């Protein structure tokens, strides 16, 4: 998991707590993500998976505990927080492509405005990334003209354009029509093979088995179980995980 030889973990969460009003969505979360690791987070709805994912680039603030990214605590606000976010890619369930910008502009905006890359250079790199996710021919279109699967692949290219240290995927295939799920998963599996550090909230068992190094099972705001994909899916230790798996695997 640490092929590049750097032994310090990329993300360390210690005793993280988070409430939404009276709802305790994250309870004493301790989790470490190594460089190059692909971590799949799985579990029932409302279990805190998305909140955990969003806490790592501070789209959600936390009430207690610490989150270290690349050895440093997450900045609370301002320029430092913007810089951290530019190093952590994020792919959303609902794509969230900038609706008034073309596909290519979606991919080049961050490099140009955040990194100060020259426009021509950003566009060249943007086109390379769009080709890589198979959307090169659509570069001049607007997001609403693309299918969901295409939009999500653009969103992945947009995240890659920032050369992030890791990418967070918050249920990236949950809003897609079934026939479009695989094209997005294929891109993600490619990224995993290339050594990208990824945290993926998903219900796609196939992806977890093929690409994940580790599976974390979350329910009621807690990490209930952590294991390798094979062990977890064939031989879950806790009743909560067995119960969950029996409901999603029997069909």
């Amino acid at each position, binding site marked *: 998991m640490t092929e590049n030889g750097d032994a310090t973990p990329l993300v360390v969460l210690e005793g993280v707590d988070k409430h939404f009003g009276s709802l305790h969505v994250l309870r004493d979360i301790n989790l470490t993500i190594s460089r190059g690791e692909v971590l799949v987070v799985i579990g029932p709805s409302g279990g805190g998976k998305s909140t955990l994912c969003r806490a790592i*680039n501070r*789209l959600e603030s936390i009430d207690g505990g610490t989150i270290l990214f690349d050895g440093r605590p997450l900045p609370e*606000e*301002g*320029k430092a927080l*913007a*810089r*951290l*976010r*530019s*190093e*952590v*890619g*994020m792919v*959303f369930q*609902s*794509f*969230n*492509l*900038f*609706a*008034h910008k073309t596909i290519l502009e979606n991919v080049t*905006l*961050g490099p140009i*405005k*955040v990194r100060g890359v020259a426009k021509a250079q950003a566009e060249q790199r943007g086109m390379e990334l769009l080709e890589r996710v198979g959307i090169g021919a659509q570069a001049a279109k*607007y997001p*609403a*003209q693309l299918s969901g699967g295409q939009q999500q692949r653009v*969103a992945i290219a*947009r*995240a890659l354009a*920032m050369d992030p240290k890791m990418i967070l995927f918050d249920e990236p295939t949950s809003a897609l029509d079934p026939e479009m799920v695989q094209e997005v998963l294929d891109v993600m599996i490619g990224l995993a093979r290339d050594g990208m550090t990824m945290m993926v909230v998903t219900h796609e068992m196939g992806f977890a088995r093929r690409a994940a190094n580790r599976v974390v099972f979350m329910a009621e705001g807690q990490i209930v179980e952590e294991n390798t994909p094979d062990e977890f899916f064939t031989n879950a230790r806790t009743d909560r995980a067995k119960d969950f798996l029996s409901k999603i695997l029997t069909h």
Partner: protein
Amino acid sequence: MDDLIKYAPDLLAGFLKNVQLSAVCAVLSLILGTVLVSMRVSPTPVLRAAGTAYVNIVRNTPLTLVLAFSALGLSDTLDVTFSDDPGSNSFWLVVLGLSLYTATFVCEALRSGINTVPMGQAEAARAIGLTFLQSLTMIILPQAFRAVIAPLGSVIIAMIKNTTVAIAAGYLAESAFVMKDTFDDTGVSIPIFLGIVVAFMIITLPIGFLTGWLANRLAVAR
């Protein structure tokens, strides 16, 4: 009809002042309204409170009082003057009062536009490392503007017609004042009334059509 033809040059000169006031106030109130809405949605509580207080006070004050305050309060009492020439000074006092007033309506139109932009747009903007101001100016406001072009057209049309109360700030050159002045010589003249109405409609009707057309053309597809 003879009165209208006889006094047409004076009335036209007055109407051109309405057009001048409108042009300057439209630019200033759009800029100031954008600044105000940025304050109202900013993450800084002090800016939010200041923006909210300003909008609620100025928007709910009658325009004639805002203009009278510009002239009597600012200019006469506090000695805020734009020019030594009284005509020019009162022109800019009207511009000040009317822009400060119209900006509150621009702000509120834009704020409803911001509410049409899905939350995910701002999250995606922040997630690639844009600062608050960058997300606002590059992602949120461009989409918000497109959503409220038609209501902004109504705000501007109302503002153009509001230039006819400029006398409240002591400005004596625009068409409504010239009309009343003319009536002192001619008695009330229906053709003159109608002539001025038509002149305003020549400006305001196309604005209504243009903004309606632009609203459709520039609508953001989701």
